[in-house]
């Protein structure tokens, strides 16, 4: 049997990555093929419908999978993840001269966020605002910068637009993942020293490989072994790891998804989708 992997095509490089990974798996005796989806919702439904065995999921898609699969009585595991997806933080940036000192000081202000389904640039930071007593949409105006809906914020464009809005003065705060703060400065979207960090979230985790309890356990185990065995020192593998943005694969964990779980419970982010997708089961 060929192990089928699902991935979302948020960028053309995704083809190169999975062609390369599948060739690597084949070389090590695992027959694998991949199916690309245009958005995570489509992929999650396909995984639960058994059309693929494993999905390379955004953290939101993993939680969606968990909830949808639970309706059929199946559990979901996150069996592997990138080193670079562990212990991320999101930042709430304000202009350097802004008098705000705490999140609560943003009351009545405009907060620029990324795509509505972006965990790092929208859901987690807005949840932090809510926890600080500011209800998004009521106590603060949420300015959405939506690039590629359904991609769960994988496209960096939304965050870049949010930061530009902050620098221009069209927004009073912008929410970005920590790594992009430095990236945008290097790219020139963010003049050095123009903004400062008002708030940093506690660490959380990002993408995971999801599989269902009813999946082909032996092959999934082999896939995990092969991933964990990939070495950055191997010149065959290194360009793929560079493209996918990691140095080594790690054992998956879901403990880092708690903040996001809390956010989608608080905002009811996926309730509508879950009801619809559940009715199609």
């Amino acid at each position, binding site marked *: 049997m060929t192990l089928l992997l699902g991935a979302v095509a948020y960028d053309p490089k995704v083809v190169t990555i999975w062609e390369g990974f599948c060739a690597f798996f084949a070389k090590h005796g695992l027959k694998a093929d991949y199916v690309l989806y245009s958005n995570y919702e489509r992929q999650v439904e396909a995984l639960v419908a058994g059309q693929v065995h494993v999905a390379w999921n955004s953290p939101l898609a993993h939680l969606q999978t968990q909830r949808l699969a639970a309706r059929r009585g199946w559990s979901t595991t996150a069996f592997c993840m990138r080193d670079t997806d562990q*212990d991320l933080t999101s930042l709430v940036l304000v202009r350097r001269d802004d008098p705000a000192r705490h999140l609560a000081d943003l009351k009545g202000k405009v907060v620029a966020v990324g795509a509505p389904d972006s965990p790092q640039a929208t859901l987690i930071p807005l949840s932090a605002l809510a926890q600080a007593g500011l209800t998004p949409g009521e106590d603060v105006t949420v300015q959405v910068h939506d690039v590629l809906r359904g991609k769960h914020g994988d496209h960096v464009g939304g965050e870049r637009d949010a930061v530009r809005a902050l620098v221009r003065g069209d927004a009073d705060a912008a929410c970005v993942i*920590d790594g992009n703060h430095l990236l945008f400065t290097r790219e020139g979207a963010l003049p050095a*020293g123009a903004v400062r960090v008002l708030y940093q979230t506690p660490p959380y985790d990002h993408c995971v490989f999801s599989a269902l309890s009813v999946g082909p356990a032996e092959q999934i185990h082999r896939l995990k072994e092969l991933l964990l065995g990939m070495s950055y020192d191997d010149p065959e593998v290194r360009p793929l790891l560079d493209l996918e943005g990691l140095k080594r694969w790690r054992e998956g964990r879901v403990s880092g998804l708690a903040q996001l779980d809390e956010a989608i419970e608080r905002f009811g982010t996926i309730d509508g989708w879950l009801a619809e997708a559940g009715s199609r089961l």
Partner: protein
Amino acid sequence: MKEDTTLDLGALGLDAGALLLVKRALRALPTGARLEVRGESPDLGHQLRAWARGQGHGYGEQDGRRWISPGGVGRWAGAERAGGVAPAGVVERPSARWGLAARGALVEAGSPALHFSLDEKSMVWSEDAGRLYAQAVAAQWDPETAIPWDAAIPHDEEVEDAVVQVMTYLIENETAALLVPARFLGQLHPHFREVMQLLAVTTADEARHIEVFTRRARLRRTLLGLSTHGGQASLKTLLEEPDFGLASFLLSVLGEGSFLSLLWFLQEHAPDPITRQICKLAAQDEARHVAFGLAHLSRHVSLDPGLRGRLALAVQHRHQSLAQTAGLNEEVFDALVVLAAGGFDPTQIAQGYERVLTLQADMDHGRKLRLERLGFHPEEAAALSALHTRNFM
């Protein structure tokens, strides 16, 4: 665990260049040690954490202090030195993965393979390439200032017609002389840097030749002369020769070699000082083109004696495929006679005719000498020279 090393960045932020200092400190860090990073930049912690994660380094914070523990993942494991920068560092067969890297650079393992079909030193290399390239660069001339374009053209209209016909023929042949090395340039492994540079400057020479011959033809005429089937059929066989050694032999040694005689002939007998100067300068360039062809083929023949037989066969094949064509067109031959005669008085024509016969004998003599330099016996050289295309190139 070793003792921590401390780096103090002062007020310098990671978004203002401090990363360079962090990377430098990490390079110098003893194995097993951590780097403590201090600094007053307000965003230092946030940025350092994100950067370290992306690099595969560990990151820790405690009581306002921050550490990076190097992850030990190395991009440069297995990297390979792409030969040596000096000519002595040229290798027999450079790796396709060295690609466009400078000769002598350290190439990251797993770099993409670029397949250049001319990747064997024996096929392309000559120790003379670097010297010939330097000579060529030093000898570049500016057509605008090197040619006396305003000099008088004293001869009559019919002689001018002959000049324009010869220019038309030269332009066509120079175009082949530009395209043939240009095609091989794109197939040559850049590891052979000096050869690549020499081929590049050779094509630039030919571009200039095309320019000056065209400009000369247009001084008095708006219409150019004739281009014949036989001439183009001859050049087509050059363009279609896929083997670098054989093409180089047919074009540089035999063709441009014959052209050297032709350009010297024109330098001596052309009826006006403009044409004479153009041909003098072009001949200087052609001498280098011939020299490189001879140099790399002599080396190649010494390493692969079987090549000589293939060169002879190439001349014979070309002769057979051109046997049914006219070769040099009558108009060019007649134009050369008129040009060398300078007028239409029978005694002038007799002299012009005599001179063109001498030119052909000179060409044959030059070809035989060059063939002998490649190790052909005198008799074999004479036979092969006689089979050379009547188009001269």
